[in-house]
């Protein structure tokens, strides 16, 4: 298991407590503090546009962590994340718009409702495995979006619903920066929670279920319980991400949650690194920003050859696919692994060969 924070080097630990600390050494604590400060001060020097993009990255990262708990840690591939995002989004939309609830109440409720729906669609995991289960989650995708688009009275049907930004006291989080803070804080909580969960009893059970379910059973692990639990926890975070996204874009509609979205999330965890929290974050950033980067390239090229715009747009798709393939070929461990290598390189840097 690749762990975000555990650094396996030869330092001598005097007690188990120290051996199991998240931030072992002083220098590690300082490093994380610096990162924290950078994240929190970012809106002060980054442009509005970048703050907006990073907000999207953070939201995706929350969802990707959720999916990774299911797919990376428990080994159950899901192609239904898109729909679960939708459940989160619609729950908060209905609660805040129709029932006038505060965002701060509806956000956790969105997570909980999605968790329940996720748990429901996790029931087939009792009997299904691998790709069969994956396609069963695709069924969840199709069925949920169908229900959303047909339940007109509640969901507004295909036209969708309009939401507003959250309010604290009298302050509305309209600006990109304020919303950025909201999402980044929730992302941090998510990371902290999942890292802790995964290094304790439940997390180990997840890994056991993934690697060898029969042996796991003999270790006293109730397979069905943990499989569904993984669906529930995973969906909770996906639901939170969906709710955050909905209030960010201020609209929900069935078309927002199509299968392409599901596949993108799957790409995030795979490119980032299965079973790695850090990987989920890096993957979310990569998949969110790669098209942006490619768009810039297309723009640049178009400036010189405006007539070829169409061609370049198609090229974007081509390169996107190519990037994913090259990634898998040259770094099958995902972004998290690359990160590890870079870190290793610098740790021994002056003495590396």
């Amino acid at each position: 298991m690749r762990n975000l924070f555990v650094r396996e080097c030869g330092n001598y630990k005097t007690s188990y407590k120290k051996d199991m600390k998240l931030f072992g050494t002083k220098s590690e604590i300082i490093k994380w503090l610096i990162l924290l400060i950078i994240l929190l001060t970012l809106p002060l020097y980054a442009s509005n546009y970048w703050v907006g993009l990073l907000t999207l990255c953070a939201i995706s990262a929350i969802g990707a962590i959720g999916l990774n708990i299911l797919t990376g840690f428990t080994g159950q591939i899901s192609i239904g994340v898109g729909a679960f995002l939708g459940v989160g989004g619609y729950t908060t939309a209905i609660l805040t718009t129709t029932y006038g609830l505060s965002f701060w109440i509806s956000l956790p409720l969105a997570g909980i409702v999605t968790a329940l729906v996720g748990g429901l669609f996790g029931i087939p995991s009792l009997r299904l495995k691998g790709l069969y289960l994956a396609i069963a989650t695709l069924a969840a995708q199709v069925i949920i979006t169908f229900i959303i688009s047909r339940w007109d009275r509640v969901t507004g049907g295909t036209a969708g619903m309009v939401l507003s930004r959250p309010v604290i006291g009298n302050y509305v989080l309209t600006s990109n920066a304020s919303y950025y803070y909201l999402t980044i804080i929730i992302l941090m909580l998510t990371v902290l929670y999942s890292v802790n969960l995964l290094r304790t009893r439940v997390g180990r059970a997840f890994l056991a279920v993934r690697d060898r379910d029969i042996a796991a059973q003999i270790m006293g692990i109730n397979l069905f319980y943990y499989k569904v639990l993984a669906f529930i926890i995973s969906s909770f975070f996906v639901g939170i991400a969906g709710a955050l996204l909905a209030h960010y874009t201020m609209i929900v509609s069935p078309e927002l949650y199509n299968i392409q979205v599901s596949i993108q999330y799957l790409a995030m965890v795979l490119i980032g690194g299965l079973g790695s929290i850090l990987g989920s974050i890096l993957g979310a950033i990569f998949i969110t920003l790669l098209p942006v980067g490619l768009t810039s390239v297309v723009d640049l090229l178009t400036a010189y050859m405006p007539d070829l715009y169409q061609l370049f747009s198609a090229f974007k798709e081509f390169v996107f696919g190519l990037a994913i393939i090259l990634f898998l070929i040259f770094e099958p461990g995902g972004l998290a692994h690359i990160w590890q290598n870079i870190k290793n390189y610098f740790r021994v840097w002056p003495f590396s060969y």
Partner: protein
Amino acid sequence: GQDSASPSTSSDSSGSDGKRTVVVGGLYDITGGTGDVGTPYAEGEKAYFEYLEMKGGVEGLNLKLIGKDYAYQIPEAQKLYQELRDKEKAVAILGWGTGDTEALRQQVASDQLPFISASYSENLKNIKESPYNFLTAASYSDQGRAILKWIVENHEGDNPPTLALLYNDTAFGRSPIEDIKAYAKEVGVEVVDEQVIDVQATEAQSQLLNMEKKNPDYAIIQQTWGATSTILRDAKTLGIDTQFIGLNWAAGEGIIDIVGADVAEGYMGILSHAFPYEDMPGMAEIKEYLDAKGKTIDDINQKFVQGWVAAKIMVEAIKIAAEKYPDGDLTGPQIREGLESIQNLDLGGLAANVSFAPDNHAGTEKIRLGIVKNGKWEPITDYFSHND
């Protein structure tokens, strides 16, 4: 942080030549699900801006169109919209589909960026909910109403006319359905059947067989080319003699190309915009542009014209705004004012003339009806609306 709600451009956007820069953002679908019509539409928009430049541009302005392909993926559209707004500093947007236009509706309202898209959803007419959206052609609902009016006026036979509705399960597909049903009731046309047919459908036999049971005289199709072709072909296969009439995206040259002249013969549709081969005064500009590019009207189609018209209306508004506010950077609200003061803008027959007002963002309710004859669309009416 900064105030993201302000769409105002940065203070020194006027170039060294003293011209004020005005950036219009474009959201295109080129590689996505509607790329077949999205591409010529995007070309039309770009062509109009190029044409303007060719003719010396707009006095005192440095007009730019910066467009991006979102492949009909709405999350991508949201990202690109942010990019246009924050990075490119766009002050107005030329959009595309119903899904993304709806998804951005709230956002453009809070960002105060006027938004013209190729989606003619009736929702967008609601000024309170969509204060920055503008429709440059008759809404899908108005198109449907116009068809109903035509049916009532032209129906032959003793029984009152019966109607079926064929659409897909998307915001686009469902947009006009309720309005059409309401209006049908009003004018005494009986809606006997509705069928949902997927956008990607390669066969629709079960739906058509079900429809056949009700034997409607007419069927209105709200689809894109692919599904429309499927419907027409399967109807022919099953020997159904209902008169099919498509709304504007279900009409156009593509249908004939796909199903062949034979099957398409007799199919009717809304012609919201002119075909390049029609002899319209408005075509002169397009021809001029094409000549300069070494192209002919055979290289373009109706969707190109549609894009061209949308761009033209937006530029018209910018011109008015620029005249009214000669100083400082142009802002979204100013362009909205410009749009709202457009009165009976003559589009030379390329489309129905448009007018907007602060309480009316629907440029027109007028359409033409056409029919496929000998493998070609021919208009059978002039521009008219159900209110005429």
